[in-house]
C-alpha cells in the first residue's frame, strides 16, 4: 500500500514507517514565531526551565505583526524578542517583511521539510512541497526546547483540478471556490494535496496563495508536488534545492477526493463575515466599497502587484476609495519598485504600506471606519478582523481588488482585460 506526500514526510521525520492516524514524535526542520505569539512562547520556554534552544540556527523569529511599531507597549514586547534572540543565538528578521514570505525567502526551507510556526498560515510553505503547519505558543516553546513535537499523522484529501483558469481568474479565486465546497471545517485535521493539469499551470505565487488559505478549510497543511516551476522559483530567489521533491505513490490511500474544473470558474468573492461565504462575482449585488487592500501573506507577492499594476496602469482609483498596497517583503518591495509597479500604483492613487500584517489583523496601518466596506486580498473576513466590527470585509483576488478600486464598487476584472 502506497503513501501520500505527508505520510512519507512524517515517516522520514519520525524515523519509522508511519501512516495516517498514527501518533508520532517528529524532528522539526525549521520553526518560526512572530511578534504576535512569540513573546508568550518565550515566557513558556522559561517556565519549562529552558536555557538553550535545541537548534538555534533553525529557530526563527520574525517581527511583522506590529510593524512599524505602533506604541511603547508593543515596543517593549518587541524588545523581549530581540533580547531572547541575542541570548539564544537564533535568527531574527526584524521589520523585513511578513513572516511566511521571509521564511520562504531566507530560512532555507526545502521540499520534504517539516516546519512549524506560531501562526495558522504557516501552511503557506506547502507550495514548496514542505509539510508546514501552525502551532500555539506552548507547542512552539516545546519545539524550541526539544527540537521535536508530537503529531497525529494526518489523512489526506486529494484535490484534482482539471482544465485551465480563464484570463482574469486567479489561484485566489480557485481557493475561494474550494472554501465554498469544503466549508470552514471540511478538511479539519486533514491535508489537502493539490494535483492536476490546472495546478501544474498555476504560477508559484498562486500556489503559495492556495497553500496559505488551506487552513481556512481547517486543513493541517495544503501541499503541492515539486515540479519545474518550484525549481524555477528557487532559482529566481537565488536559493538552492538540496532535497528531492516528495511525491505520493500511485496507490496511496486518500480520505477523500474533490474534483474541480478550473475552466468553469469565474472570479470569486468571500462575503462578510466568513471565508466560506463565497459568491461568484456574477451573482454579487451592486456593492460600493470604501477601501481596497492589496497585499498580505496571501497576495502580497510580485505577480500579485504586477496584476494590479497592469489593471491600474494609466487609470485612477475612485475618489471615494482609499487603496493600501503592502508588498509581502522587502525583496518584493524592491523588485516592485524596480519594475515600476509601485510607481504605477501610486500614480493611480494607492498608498504603499511597509511590509507588515497590520491592516489584515486590524492592529495598525489601515483600520477601516464604521460601516466601511473593504475589498481585500487577505485570507480572513471575520467580523472585526481588520480592527472594526462595524466594517464589512470582502475577500477577492488582486485583479478583482484593483478593478474594484477603479470603479468604487466590486467589479469583475475581466471587464478591464
Amino acid at each position, binding site marked *: 500500500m502506497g503513501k501520500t506526500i505527508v505520510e512519507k514526510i512524517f515517516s522520514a521525520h519520525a524515523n519509522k514507517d508511519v501512516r495516517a492516524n498514527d501518533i508520532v514524535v517528529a524532528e522539526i526542520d525549521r520553526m518560526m514565531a512572530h511578534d504576535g505569539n512569540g513573546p508568550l512562547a518565550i515566557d513558556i520556554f522559561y517556565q519549562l526551565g529552558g536555557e538553550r534552544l535545541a537548534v538555534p540556527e533553525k529557530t526563527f523569529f520574525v517581527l511583522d505583526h506590529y510593524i512599524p511599531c505602533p506604541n511603547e507597549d*508593543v515596543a517593549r514586547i518587541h524588545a523581549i524578542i530581540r533580547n531572547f534572540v541575542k541570548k539564544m543565538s537564533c535568527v531574527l528578521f526584524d521589520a523585513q517583511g511578513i513572516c511566511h514570505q521571509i521564511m520562504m525567502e531566507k530560512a532555507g526551507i526545502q521540499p520534504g521539510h517539516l516546519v512549524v510556526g506560531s501562526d495558522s498560515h504557516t501552511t503557506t510553505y506547502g507550495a514548496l512541497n514542505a509539510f508546514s503547519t501552525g502551532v500555539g505558543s506552548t507547542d512552539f516553546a516545546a519545539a524550541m526546547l526539544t527540537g521535536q513535537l508530537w503529531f497525529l499523522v494526518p489523512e489526506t484529501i486529494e484535490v484534482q483540478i482539471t482544465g485551465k483558469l480563464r484570463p482574469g481568474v486567479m489561484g485566489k479565486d480557485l481557493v475561494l471556490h474550494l472554501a465554498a465546497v469544503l466549508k470552514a*471545517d471540511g478538511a*479539519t485535521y486533514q491535508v489537502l494535496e493539490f494535483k492536476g493539469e490546472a495546478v501544474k499551470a498555476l504560477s508559484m505565487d498562486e500556489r503559495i496563495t492556495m497553500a496559505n488559505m488551506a487552513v481556512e478549510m481547517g486543513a493541517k497543511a495544503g501541499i503541492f508536488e515539486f515540479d519545474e516551476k518550484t525549481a524555477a522559483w528557487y532559482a529566481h530567489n537565488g536559493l538552492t534545492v538540496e532535497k528531492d521533491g516528495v511525491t505520493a505513490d500511485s496507490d496511496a490511500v486518500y480520505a477523500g477526493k474533490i474534483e474541480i474544473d478550473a475552466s468553469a470558474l469565474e472570479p470569486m468573492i468571500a462575503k462578510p463575515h466568513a471565508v466560506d461565504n463565497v459568491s461568484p462575482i456574477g451573482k454579487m449585488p451592486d456593492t460600493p466599497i470604501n477601501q481596497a487592500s492589496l497585499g498580505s501573506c496571501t497576495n502580497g507577492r510580485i505577480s500579485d502587484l504586477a496584476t494590479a499594476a497592469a489593471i491600474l496602469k494609466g487609470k485612477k482609483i475612485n475618489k471615494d476609495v482609499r487603496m493600501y498596497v503592502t508588498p509581502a517583503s522587502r525583496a518584493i518591495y524592491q523588485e516592485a519598485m524596480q519594475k515600476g509597479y509601485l510607481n504605477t500604483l501610486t500614480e493611480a492613487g494607492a498608498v504603499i504600506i511597509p511590509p507588515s500584517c497590520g491592516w489584515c489583523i*486590524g492592529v495598525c496601518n489601515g483600520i477601516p471606519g464604521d460601516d466601511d466596506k473593504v475589498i481585500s486580498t487577505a485570507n480572513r473576513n471575520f467580523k472585526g478582523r481588520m*480592527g472594526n466590527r462595524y466594517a464589512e470585509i470582502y475577500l477577492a483576488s488582486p485583479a478583482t481588488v484593483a478593478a474594484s478600486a477603479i470603479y468604487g464598487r466590486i467589479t469583475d476584472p475581466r471587464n478591464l482585460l
Partner: protein
Amino acid sequence: MRGQVHKLGDDINTDYIISGKNKRDTFDPREMVKHLFEDIDPTLAMRIKCGDILVAGNNFGCGSSREAAPQVIKAAGVRAVLAKSFARIFFRNGINIGLPLLICDTGGIEEGDVLEIDLENGIIQNITRNRQITFRKLPAVMADIFQEGGLVNYLRKNQGFVV
C-alpha cells in the same frame, strides 16, 4: 464540576474569542478578559462568571493559532468548553494549558442550562433537562498532557514526548 451554560454557534473563530487589536499590547490573558467575545457579543464577557461552561457547535476555535484564545477563556473562569468539534490548533492549545475541551453532541444543551461534568468518567449530566450525554476520550498523548495539567508540567516531568 458544575456550571451554567453560555451557548455559542458554529465556527467561532479565535478572532471572535480575542481579537488581534485586544491582544496587541500585552500577552497577559488577565488583561484581555474584558474583551472576550467582544466583536460578536460585547456584553458576554461581563455575563460570564467564574465556573461557567461554554457550549458551542462545530469547529470551535477555528482561524488563528493564537494561544491567547484558550488562555483568555480560562482566565475568565470558564471551567470547560463543550463543542461538536474543535479546530485543530485550538484543540491542542486548550489541552496544552489544561482547559477541558469536550467533544460531544451539544445539540440539546440550551443557554442557562446547568451541567455537571464528570471528567473522570466522560459523562455530562444536564441538571436542567435531566439528560445525560457522554464526551469523546482524548488520544493517549493528549490525555497524558491534560492529566498533568498541561504541556509545561508534562514536559517538566517527562523531559520530552512519550508516545
